[in-house]
């Protein structure tokens, strides 16, 4: 799940300066879960914009706004409204905002600040546990990711900033390395507690990430 938070409304208004006709795009997936771009938040944004003197010419909530084809298709269904719009305000993650970008040449702006790939621990309680590093090392660390959950991404043990089992950066956050050692101890994996791990290969995935293998397979299947 992509975790995001709402941008301050004043920031959005400033970005819309000189434009009065706005089309709002939400997202039926992550932004709905994080309550930043679901039906309720899109309606709230519409009311806020209208209160500020803007005209909301249309709204839509694709099932997943990062799906570029779906966004294009759905936008065609809102052709008239989209033609009137001067700006598209997107209440999803940056991937969704850029899917809208790919569907129109008009002003497209984000209404949220995307934060991280997060686990839903409880309703509205999210924690980042994976940073999509390109080469999963979880098995070496008892299923607890030091790349993500250590503030410095340290691969061979805690830093000197750990205090009472908590992180130097956030005293409320458990030190990932204390968790890793506790877990490996439970599993009796002394070998994993002792092993020296090499640094990450940061170029396993060249940024920007790109994966077309699946497309090739799909094409092959269709042709075959």
């Amino acid at each position, binding site marked *: 799940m992509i975790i995001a938070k709402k941008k301050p409304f004043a920031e959005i208004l400033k970005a819309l300066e000189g434009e009065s006709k706005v089309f709002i795009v939400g997202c039926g997936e992550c932004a709905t879960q994080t309550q930043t771009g679901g039906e309720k938040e899109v309606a709230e944004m519409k009311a806020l914009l209208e209160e500020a003197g803007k005209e909301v010419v249309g709204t839509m909530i694709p099932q997943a706004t990062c799906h570029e084809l779906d966004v294009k298709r759905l936008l065609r269904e809102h052709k008239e409204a989209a033609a009137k719009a001067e700006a598209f305000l997107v209440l999803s993650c940056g991937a969704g905002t850029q899917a809208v970008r790919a569907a129109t040449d008009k002003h497209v702006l984000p209404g949220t600040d995307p934060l991280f790939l997060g686990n839903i621990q409880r309703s509205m309680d999210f924690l980042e546990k994976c940073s999509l590093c390109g080469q999963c090392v979880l098995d070496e660390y008892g299923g607890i990711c030091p790349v993500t959950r250590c*503030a*410095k*991404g*340290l*691969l*061979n*043990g*805690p*830093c*000197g*900033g*750990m*205090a*009472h*089992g908590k992180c*130097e*950066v956030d005293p409320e956050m458990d*030190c990932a*390395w*204390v968790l*890793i*050692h506790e877990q490996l101890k439970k599993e009796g994996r002394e070998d994993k*507690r*002792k092993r*020296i791990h*090499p*640094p*990450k290969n*940061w170029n396993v995935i060249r940024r920007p990430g790109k994966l077309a293998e699946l497309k090739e397979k799909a094409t092959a299947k269709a042709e075959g």
Partner: protein
Amino acid sequence: MGKYRDACNSGKFVISGEIGPPKGTNVERMLHHIDLLKDRVDGLNVTDNQSAVMRMGSLVVSGEIVRRGGDAIFQTTCRDRNRLALQSDLLSAAFLGITNVLCLTGDHPIVGDHKEAKGVFDFDSVHLIQCCRKMNEGYDWAGNQLDGPTDFFIGAVVTPESDPLEPQFYKFARKVEAGVDFIQTQAVYDMDHFQRFMEKAREITAGTNVKIMAGLVVLTSLGMAKYMNRSVPGIFVPDSLLEEMASVPKEEALRKGMEITARQIRFLRDNRVCDGVHIMAIGKEEIVPEILEMAGVSGQET
């Protein structure tokens, strides 16, 4: 080659001090401290943007210490540089005649004065130790042959008061395995705790020639002692020392702190608890010679 390395290998009780580069171009005070200490200690650490606060670089200040006839211990953190920059600086250090490197993770930018900076941490301290070792063997991290190897005496740190301590010991063992030559500890105040720590540490270094220096930060006031206890991770000042600091009027607190440090140096040396001490006076380096006199020790002698 290298006074600090020679002192470590000689079996004498090793003394090192610390220089904090200035925030700005005014080097007068720092040069005064270097000249005051360079012949009184075996080596002088130079901190690397300590506490993630931007300052003059440790590389060039370490070079200046060497140029003035002292021996520098070049502190290098993984916070500000990726593996290319770290190795490049290590080659530069060798060119400047620097032979001692202290490999550190580095504090997170968020605790410093450029809170919006990106922390690098491409390497961790264990990788940096391995990398120095490789460069000593004539290769860079990627395995390319160097046109002339380095000859570093490689150091790292450990935090004896880390809570919990066990993960810290595992990391310490990794550092020893990675090929460290010497260890400096985070500041220690409780000598009983430290003795117990050293017993375990010696088990880990058994069969190696790794030297361990106790880190001693001079207490300058009761407030500072309380602050360290409360706010600095991995530092524990026992009640007995807090009481001792509280027992004197404010204007005598620094002298009391110096007495405590001198007493600890004597204790550690006389009982052979560790192989030396690293004295940190954090900006008050002019008091270090007197502390050494009070303790009856001095660097660069047997």
